[in-house]
């Protein structure tokens, strides 16, 4: 009897894959929408593509409660200090998705006041091309990011610096 109970109720796995499984299926995005990509991101959350299917329906407008920063739209020189501050406020572990041409490269806005790609200043994990990307594109990028999170190795992280 006990043997049967164990068979149907106990699952063995590694700590790493259990943690990654939890992380990748409950990414809480923080949308940093500054332009039309922000509008398109609303469509990603709506019924047709429904990001909730991937465990990301809890949109947090506070960086302290989220672990995925979605930069949607062009970032001007006045906005960049804000974006850097918000990135630094997100607790570890954190990931960044650069949504659309403007956030990734500056897009058509090749002028003095627009940052030519946020990856010059903050680390980016997934780029979603498009102007703006279709919701399917964002979901594709999101699944790519989930794969990335699922493959992370705990041993890859360096120990915290000694105080």
């Amino acid at each position, binding site marked *: 009897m006990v043997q049967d109970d164990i068979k149907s109720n106990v699952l063995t796995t590694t700590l790493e894959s259990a943690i990654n499984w939890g992380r990748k299926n409950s990414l809480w995005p923080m949308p940093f929408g500054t332009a039309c990509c922000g509008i398109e991101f609303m469509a990603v959350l709506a019924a047709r593509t429904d990001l909730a299917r991937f465990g990301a329906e809890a949109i947090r407008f506070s960086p302290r409660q989220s672990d995925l920063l979605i930069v949607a739209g062009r970032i001007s020189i*006045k906005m960049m200090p804000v974006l850097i501050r918000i*990135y630094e406020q997100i607790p570890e572990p954190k990931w960044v998705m650069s949504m659309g041409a403007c956030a990734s490269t500056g897009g058509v806005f*090749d*002028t*003095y*006041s627009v940052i030519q790609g946020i990856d010059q*200043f903050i*680390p980016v994990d997934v780029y979603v091309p498009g102007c703006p990307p279709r919701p399917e594109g964002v979901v594709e990028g999101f699944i790519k990011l989930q794969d990335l999170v699922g493959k992370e190795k705990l041993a*890859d992280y*360096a120990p915290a610096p000694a105080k």
Partner: protein
Amino acid sequence: MTAANILSKIKENFPEAVLDMTEFAGEQILHVRGPDILTLLTKLKADGFNFLADLTAIDNLTLGGYERFAVSYHLLCHQTGERLTVKAYIPEEKPSLPSVESLWKTADWQEREVFDLYGIKFEGHPNLIRIMNPDDFEGYPLRKDYPRLGRKERSDFPVVDRGIQKKKS
């Protein structure tokens, strides 16, 4: 009073201020000297052009004109529906104009925008600070001699690393 009447009267009363009068697409353009703009617009407002539709500036560096900068005031008369453009020309050195904020409150932000992008000072403006660029921004980006890609403003930020340092594999 029609626009043509008003304009001929303006030209009679201010012969020194008015440089030229032209017409484009059926609308009158009044070219005037910069320092007289406040008196002129006060008169035009009293004569019926009661609405300031737009206030913007032109850099004549490559266009040619009376002076380097022109600030254009787009007026509308609500009674007759007529429009009038007034262009005030000001020289390159220390460009400044009297503010028309006392006539139209809407000129407040529009003069700040012109100041931000062209560096034209408006005397008598209550709060002449940059409206769109960061406060510590240097230069006036809509001037024609400002480089289109800027002076490295867009690449002058600290680079943030990942919080947790990943081991190099």
